[in-house]
């Protein structure tokens, strides 16, 4: 198959299929890429994100592990230190806490601690976020934990195209990447995704919608309600710019600041709880870099400071179109 042919052909994929396609492409490209996790092999993963990889690459490269997140993460660090490229799956991001020590104390710090002699080029993938009518661990968004740890990169895609490209970039990245997948939109929509492998650069936000009145910063599953709110507000004459950050660490402060200087107003939408959430970090960046442009307080449209609640309360917890629109109006009408 010529490269040209590959580049031209695409497939219409959901986000979770793009994960699978991205893994497949990277495994074909590099024999050192090893996928591991609970039921990722023979069974293809609880969300089918690794479906068929075991058939294509065998159990040396697609490893079904025992139920042991700490062991999985630590093993991945050891593999990465000696040249393999582990891509470890955690079934839900809420099950990563047993692995937290290995991720934070080792994966994140190996390079710095050894003055660059050892590194942990590895990816930990996990579905995250709410909206699936399950409480706590099955729905929470803890991206801020990982962003707070220097040495980790944190990536959250919001489209199938980006998913494949960001995953490839994460796998090829020389440092550990926490790759959080918005499971609410795993199958919500499809997009043309090139068959060939490609990367989407880490650390670069995407302006999903240009506007002049207000900049709204968001990521993951919150991108869609934000775009929908922006559409609705257009009818009211409010011109909303929507920036999908895509990589939360390192954060694309350049795009944030540039957008804010244009609009002078901002809102941040995330499903994680408000206190200690990344909205605070984005606002601080705006204050530091563009204070004189600011025309209104920056709105935080977020989850509440409670454990992710069960069914009856979930609809209230997650920012949706109406709440996002309300927050944006507040900032615009200030």
């Amino acid at each position: 198959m010529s490269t040209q042919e590959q580049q031209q052909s695409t497939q219409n994929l959901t986000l979770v299929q793009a994960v699978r396609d991205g893994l497949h492409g990277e495994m074909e490209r590099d024999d050192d890429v090893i996928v591991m996790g609970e039921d990722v092999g023979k069974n293809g993963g609880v969300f089918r994100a690794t479906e068929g990889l075991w058939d294509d690459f065998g159990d040396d490269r697609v490893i079904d592990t025992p139920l042991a997140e700490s062991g999985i993460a630590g093993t991945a660090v050891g593999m990465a230190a000696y040249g393999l490229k582990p891509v470890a799956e955690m079934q839900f991001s809420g099950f990563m806490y047993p692995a937290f020590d290995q991720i934070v104390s080792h994966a994140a710090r190996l390079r710095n601690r050894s003055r660059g002699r050892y590194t942990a080029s590895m990816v930990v993938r996990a579905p995250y976020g709410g909206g699936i009518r399950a409480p706590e661990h099955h729905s929470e968004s803890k991206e801020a934990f990982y962003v707070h740890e220097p040495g980790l990169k944190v990536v959250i895609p919001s489209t199938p195209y980006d998913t494949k490209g960001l995953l490839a970039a994460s796998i090829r990245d020389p440092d550990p990447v926490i790759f959080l997948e918005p499971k609410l939109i795993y199958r919500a929509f499809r997009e043309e995704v090139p068959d060939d492998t490609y990367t989407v650069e880490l650390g670069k936000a995407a302006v999903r919608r240009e506007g002049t009145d207000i900049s709204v910063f968001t990521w993951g599953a919150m991108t869609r309600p934000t775009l929908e709110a922006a559409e609705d507000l257009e009818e009211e004459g409010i011109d909303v710019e929507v920036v999908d950050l895509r990589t939360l660490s390192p954060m694309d402060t350049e795009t944030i600041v540039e957008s804010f200087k244009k609009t002078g107003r901002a809102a941040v939408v995330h499903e994680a709880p408000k206190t200690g959430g990344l909205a605070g970090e984005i606002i601080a960046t705006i204050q530091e870099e563009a204070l004189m442009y600011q025309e209104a307080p920056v709105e935080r449209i977020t989850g509440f400071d409670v454990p992710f609640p069960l069914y009856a309360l979930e609809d209230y917890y997650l920012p949706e179109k109406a709440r996002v629109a309300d927050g944006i109006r507040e900032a615009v009408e200030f």
Partner: protein
Amino acid sequence: MVTIDIKAESGQREMLRRMLTIRAFDTRAGELFADGELPGFVHLYIGEEAVGVGAISALEPDDYITSTHRGHGHCIAKGLDTYQMMAELYGKRDGYCNGKGGSMHIADVDAGMLGANGIVGAGPPLATGAALTASYKDEDRVALAFFGDGAVAQGQVHEGINLAATWDLPAIFVVENNHFGEATPVENQHNVEHLSATAEAYNIPGFTVDGMDVTAVYEAVEEARARAAAGDGPTFIEADTYRYKGHFEGDHEPYRTKDDIDDARERDAIDRFKTRLVDAGVITDAEFDDLEAEVEAEIDEATERAQDAEYPDPSEAYEDMFGAHVPEIEEFAARVRTDGGERQ
């Protein structure tokens, strides 16, 4: 005094009733989930009833247990109310967690039930802590942790057992070996033939029992309890059992065949116990049918009431966040009311 005296005929009938209740409850829960009635996830205990009922009946009523994501059976065996359980599955205010926990977090600390647990392997250290409390307060209580074969691969399970063993605490560790952790067979998760071999590493007694024989489980736990209460430390019991249903509703179960399930059903705990009781003249076939009907009616009623029950109010999200008063909480709660209030 044990929770249920297996030597008494009334005790035997009660154990049978609890096993039937578990089966009926979880059969219903599975149906409701498949119909889209129940949100979240439900993990069914069908096939494993003898472990929960055998073990808990042999404990004293004041003893503690910790449970798992597959916890409905432990709750019923511990005497929890099926209506409050069902209400919790529905996320209703009348549920054991007032609709905040769901299937995987049902808890009733007053009843000695420290909680189902969404985190695989989290229970054993909690049981160790409960056992330490009993020991510190010089109370005649033991703590029993249930956990799965998959959980035995988790570090914290071993940490919990090691602490209890080292400190000679009144704890009992019961692994429910249903042969799979999700889709992965136990052989692919562990390098030992019997998980009870785990006990050797901690220098505590370890046994493997037929987990589909309620009497065998009962006797093993009765002995373990006596040892724990005498200050001789924990026991590790592996109950060999089987999960009849998929790990979750909609599980295609490529990891086993129908024959595998049928083979396990040959050893069905309820059938075997019933036959034994009928043969011994403890119960007649007609009485058994009545018992089944009674249990079915109880689950019908629990379900109907749970369906009609109220959801918690959105502002309740902020209730019980902290023991002490935190002023910001009220502000937050007000925000939930204004942000979400009109959407109901």
